[in-house]
């Protein structure tokens, strides 16, 4: 796939820049709230459990399991992915408890099922961007 066609994150907010800059350095960040102890993803500048503005970044271990997944067979809404078909899109539940939308790569799509253990790997898109994706472990 041509990187220019891929829908890229907007990096509009400060929290988005922090997350994606860390991903480019192969670090997977999630957020933890010091006030209520909850963890969250996707990132925001507040805790959506208790409303606290003191949310902190923590580095995830990068391991988890597939909570739900699909094998994309037709690029109906994002045509830039047509050349990648078939590919796996999944919600991965990290060991820290948050759920993350990503891809499961380096596998036969037919072998993935809910509960499949996975670990993070980083797929470079260009010099400043890498996607945190997962592979079976």
């Amino acid at each position, binding site marked *: 796939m041509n990187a220019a066609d*891929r*829908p*890229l*994150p*907007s*990096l*509009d*907010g400060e929290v*988005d820049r922090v997350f994606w800059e860390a991903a480019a350095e192969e670090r997977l960040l999630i957020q933890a709230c010091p006030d209520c102890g*909850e963890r969250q*993803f*996707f990132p925001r500048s507040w805790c*959506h*459990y208790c409303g606290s503005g003191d949310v902190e970044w923590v580095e995830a271990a990068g391991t988890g399991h597939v*909570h*739900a*997944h*699909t*094998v*994309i*067979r*037709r*690029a*109906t*809404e*994002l045509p*830039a*992915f047509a050349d*990648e078909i*078939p*590919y796996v*899109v*999944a*919600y991965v539940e990290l060991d820290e*408890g*948050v*759920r*993350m*939308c*990503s*891809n499961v790569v380096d596998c036969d799509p037919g072998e993935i*099922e*809910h509960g499949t253990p996975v670990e993070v790997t980083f797929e470079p898109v260009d010099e400043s961007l890498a*996607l945190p*994706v997962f592979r079976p472990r």
Partner: protein
Amino acid sequence: MAFEDVVVAGIGETEKHRPSRRNDQPYHTLEEYFRTAASLTLADAGLDWGDVDGLGVARPSTETPHRYPLVLAETLGFEDIRWLTCTDHCGGQAVPLLAQAAMAVDSGMVDSVLCLGADTPKHPEKGSGEVFPRDPRGFRRDYTDPFGLQGPNAQLAMVQRRHMDRFGTTVEQLGELYVAQRAGATRNPLAYFDDPVTVEDYVASGVIADPIRLFDCVLPVNAGFGFLLATPDMATDLGVDPVSIRGVGNSHNPEVAPRREFTATGIGTAAERAFGMAGVGPADMDFLQLYDDYPIVELMQLEELGYTECGEGGEFLERTDLTHDGDLPVNTGGGQLCAGQAGIGGASFLQVLEAVRQLGGDGGDRQVPGAERGLVTGVGAAQYGKNLTAHSVAVLERGVPA
């Protein structure tokens, strides 16, 4: 609380079109569908053009200017609107629009509210498929699009796959529901599809996002819909068959955490509120008009509304006749899967209108025998790490409020 001073006094629904370069179906603008829907609804109630006291507009997904309800009121030619509202509740929005308008009439603020929904997802020059503008900010742009999550098809495919893996639900079982609705569509002159299909046809319709097939995906059409709410006195003066709104209930973003089982929604909570207000329960319904963007979404609703146990929905579909004169009539006119869904703007209007039609005895070849009371649902808004997050339910009943 109860809605004692409001009824549904008229409905209107346009023909469905899917214009493309490959056919000669007509292309009408969004405003033309709104105009036709308004005209049909007012005529059904016996009102003249312009006899509009209040106006409710469901926001279309086709690009519109901001202040659109005001623009539409002026474009259509409605003078001195005393109460104007707009919903933006994703697919289920006709149901909360019904509730909002009912509150306005029941409170005495206005004597009537004309509610309209229309959309034009199909354009002959812009290709096929519904084109939503890309979100300017937010999780979709930053955290799902970069991984190629192909919209609702992929999101609901994940839900269906998990339901199948956990409970043994099969594609063929979901096909039974589709086939029953398709049979309803053959009896509905306003449905886009008018030919029956088999479970084999459904299974062979082509995988989009495994296990979601082409026939699982809601059918985008250009169309417009309307319903008129009025006081019972006004309905009597007009000489129409009224339908009362016994209960309404909502649950939006039912849980902050994405811990909820991915195959669960909040429709049960919304329904509890609607049934509580109505003083009736699931067993008292003569039919269900369930929001249907995918058969799996209907199956989840059947489970959470209490018509079958959680996880047993597949088997339930297999053993239950869901057609208009069967055990539990569901989406008797074909639903959005087979009659067509007019984008987000017209979404779930089909459910409201088919319920009113059935309760008025106007179901024609698909009339549910002895229909006195029915359930209408509207759902939508799949969000990050979660299933659908917008849920609205209404219980409708034949006649004026008791």
